[in-house]
C-alpha cells in the first residue's frame, strides 16, 4: 500500500507542485491549505508523513500549532517543516515541537524526496525486528544509517535527519576535513555558512548533553569540520 503524505501549504502553486512531485514518486498525497482543514482531516485519518509550512494563511505560526496538535495525536508520525523561514529561532522552535526535520524552501524536490524516503526508512527500520544494520562505529559513537539513530557511549543522542547526516559525513572518515559544501551536499541542505555553523553547534550541544566532555568535532577554520580520529 502506498504511503500517504499530507502536505499543508497555503501557496496553491507550491502545494500543487509538491503534490505532483510526491505523487510521481509513488506516494499518495492529500494537500491542505489551512490549519483547521488539515487538522479535521488528520482526526479522520492520519497520514503516514506530514510536510507542514509554518505560515498558514493569516496564521503566521499556524504550522507550529498544527505540529503540536498532530504530535499529540500521533507521537510517532514523521513531521517535516518546509518553510521560507530560516532563522535559528524558527528552526529551534520547530524542532522543539517535535518535528523530525526542518527544511527551507530552497530545498530541491529530489532533496525533499530523499528526506521523505529516509524518514520512511527510519520508521520501517524501527518497526522491523533488529537485523544486521548499516552501523558505523567510531569509538564510542554508533550510527545506524538505516534507523537514523545515533548513540554516544551507549546512550542515544536524538538527532534530526539533517544533523544525523552531518555527523555521518564527518564520522565516516575521521580526521578528514569536510568543508561546508560537502556537509551541505551530504545533508541535502542548501543553506549559508552561518546555518551550517549553527547546525554544528546544535550537534555539539546534543552530544554534550549526553557527555559533557564531548569534544570530537573540530573546527578547522577556513576549511570546515573534522571528526577527531
Amino acid at each position, binding site marked *: 500500500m502506498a504511503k500517504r503524505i499530507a502536505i499543508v501549504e497555503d501557496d496553491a502553486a507550491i502545494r500543487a507542485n509538491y503534490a*505532483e512531485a510526491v505523487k510521481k514518486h509513488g506516494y499518495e498525497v492529500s494537500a491542505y491549505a489551512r490549519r483547521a482543514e488539515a487538522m479535521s482531516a488528520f482526526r479522520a485519518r492520519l497520514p503516514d508523513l506530514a510536510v507542514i509550512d509554518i505560515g498558514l494563511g493569516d496564521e503566521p505560526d499556524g504550522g507550529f500549532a498544527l505540529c503540536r496538535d498532530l504530535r499529540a495525536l500521533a507521537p510517532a508520525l514523521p513531521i517535516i517543516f518546509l518553510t521560507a523561514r*530560516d532563522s535559528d529561532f524558527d528552526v529551534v522552535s520547530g524542532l522543539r515541537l517535535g518535528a523530525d526535520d526542518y527544511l527551507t524552501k*530552497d530545498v530541491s*524536490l529530489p532533496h525533499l524526496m530523499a528526506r521523505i524516503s529516509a524518514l520512511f526508512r527510519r520508521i520501517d527500520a524501527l518497526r522491523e525486528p533488529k537485523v544486521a544494520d548499516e552501523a558505523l562505529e567510531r569509538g564510542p559513537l554508533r550510527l545506524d544509517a538505516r534507523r537514523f539513530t545515533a548513540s554516544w557511549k551507549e546512550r542515544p543522542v536524538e538527532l534530526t535527519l539533517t544533523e544525523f547526516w552531518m555527523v555521518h559525513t564527518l564520522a565516516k572518515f575521521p580526521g578528514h576535513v569536510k568543508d561546508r559544501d560537502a556537509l551541505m551536499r551530504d545533508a541535502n541542505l542548501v543553506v549559508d555558512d552561518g546555518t551550517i555553523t549553527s547546525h554544528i553547534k546544535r550537534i555539539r550541544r546534543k552530544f554534550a548533553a549526553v557527555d559533557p566532555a564531548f569534544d570530537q568535532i573540530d*573546527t*578547522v*577554520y577556513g576549511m570546515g569540520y573534522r571528526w577527531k580520529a
Partner: protein
Amino acid sequence: MRLPRISLRWKLALVALLLLALPWAGYEYVREMERFLLDGQEQALLATARAIATALHDRPGLMAPRVEREADPRVRAEQELAGLAARRGESAEPANPDAAKPGAAKPDPASPDAASPPAGAAPRPPSIIARESSPRDEPREIADILRGVQHTTSRVWVVSRDLRVLALAGTLRRPEGEEDEGWAHRVLGELFPRPSENFDDTIGYDALANGREIAAALRGVPDVGLRGTPDAKAVVITAAHPVWSGDEVAGAVVAEETTNSILTARSRALERLLVVTLAVFAVAAGVLIWLATGISSRIRRLRDEAETAIDARGRLAHVVTAQRSGDEIGDLSRSFSALLGKLGQYNAYLEGLASRMSHELRTPIAVVRSSLENLKLSPTAEEARVYIGRAEDGLRRLGTILTRMSEATRLEQGLSSLERERFDLAAVVRGSVDGYRLAYPDRRFELHLPGVPVPVSGSADLAAQLLDKLVANAADFTASGDPILVRLDAAGGAARLRVENKGPLLPETMRAKLFEAMVSVRGERADKPGAEPHLGLGLYIARVIAEYHGGGMAAENLASGDGVAVTASFRVAPEKAAATTR
C-alpha cells in the same frame, strides 16, 4: 556664520546684570527724596524765620540801629562774624560795612568752647550772643527771643533794613560723632563720604549785600534760597522773613541751616541702597545661575543622549529617556523620545526589509523551482532541457542573492544571543590561511603571525568568517600569481589583522563608506561572468564582526601605490586562567 558659543548659564548671568539697573533707580529715588527733604527743610526754616519774625513784628524799638556800645550784642555779633572771616585768612572784608570800625576788626578772644577744635579748624562761634549784655537792652531782647533756637542746628540772625546784623544765635555746625555708623559705612565710607562739619560758616559780605533772600525779605517777601559756604564745603539754606513794623519792613529774620543732615541721610541711604542691591543682585544672580544650570544641564543631558542615540553605524543605539517634568524641556525630551522611537521602528523595518523580502521571495522562487523540477521529471524535448538548465542557473543565483541579503541581518540578530568564548586568534588565522591555500590554488598567501597566542574573547567562527570575507575580497582583486599578505600582530591591547593585496586602488571618496551595507567599489572588471552575485555586504559583515570583538575596520591604499590593505582590529582579552578554546 558661526556665532560665539555662550552657554545658557552665562546668558542668564548676563541677563542678571540687568539687575544692576536697580542701584540707578534707587539713586534716582534717593535724589528725589533729597529734593523733597530739601524742600521740607526750606519750609521748616522759613517757618522758623516766620515765627521769630512774628515775635519781632511791630516792635520798632527793637529794630532801631544802635551802635554806641562796644558790648552791644549786635556789635559783638558783627565782631564774631568778622573774626571768623579773619581767622580763615580771608580778605579782611567786613561782614558789615557799617560795623567796620577800628578796634572792632579784632576778634574777640572769648571763645567759650570746652572742646577745642582740631588745628586749622574754625572755632565754634558763641552759642549765645550777648550773654553778658545789660538788661533791658533791645538787642538783648532780640537775643532772648533768639535763644529759643540755640539748641537747633540752625543759625538765626536778624538784620536791620540797612543790612546791619542786630543779633545772631545758634550755629550751623552739628555736634559730631554722635552716631555709630554700621559696618557698611566702614566698608563703603570711601564711596559715600559724610558731609564735613568743618566748613567756613562766616557770613560773607556778599551774602548780606547780594543775598537774594535778604533783599526779598527787606522788600517784604519771605524767601528761601541756597548758597554755598565761602569754602564750598557745604551748602547753606537761607530763609529770610521780613519783620514788619506797621506797614513797612523794619528788618529781616534770616534763618540758616546747612544741608548736611540731608546729605548725611542721602549718603546713608545710598550706602544702604548699594548694600541692599548688591545683596539682591547676588541672590538673584545666584538663583538665576542655579536655574540656568538646572536648565542647561537638562538640555545638555538631552543633547548627549540625542548624540549617542544614533551609533557610529547610523543605527539607533538607545531611545532618549523622556524627562518627566512638565515644562518645555520635558516636552522636547518627550518629543525626542517619541521621534527616536518612531525612527527606531522605521530602522527596524528597513533592517528587517532585506530578510523579510528574501522570505517573501523564497515562496515564488520555490514555485518556479518546483515547477522546473516537475518539468524535468516529465518527458520533455531535448531543446526544452537547455532552457530548463538556464532557468535553474538563474534561479540558483537568485537564491544566493536572497541568502546573502539575509545573512547580515541574521548575523546581527545572532550576535546578541551569542556566547563569548576565548580563543587564540593566531591559531584561527593559521588554520584559515591553510584552508585558503587549498581553496584558492592559483593565489599565493604570505602569512605573518606573532610567536605567541593572541587571546581574543568572542567567536572563533565569526573571526574566521571575517577573515574569509577579507581574503575573498583580496582574491577577487588580485591577479593570479601575486601574493596576498595576511599579517596578525598584537600590541597595546589590540590585535590587528591585516590583509594586503596588489591590485586596483580604492577611490578616496569610497574609503569611509566601504564598510557600510550595500556599498561596493567593484567596477565592471571584477564582475566576471559566472561570478557570484555581489551585494557589497562582505565588508559590512566583516565590520559587524570586528565591532563585536571590540575593534573596527580600516582600509587604505598601500604606500607603494599598487595595492590595498584592509585591517581588522580586535580587542585582546586579558589573560585568564582556564581559558577554553576550541
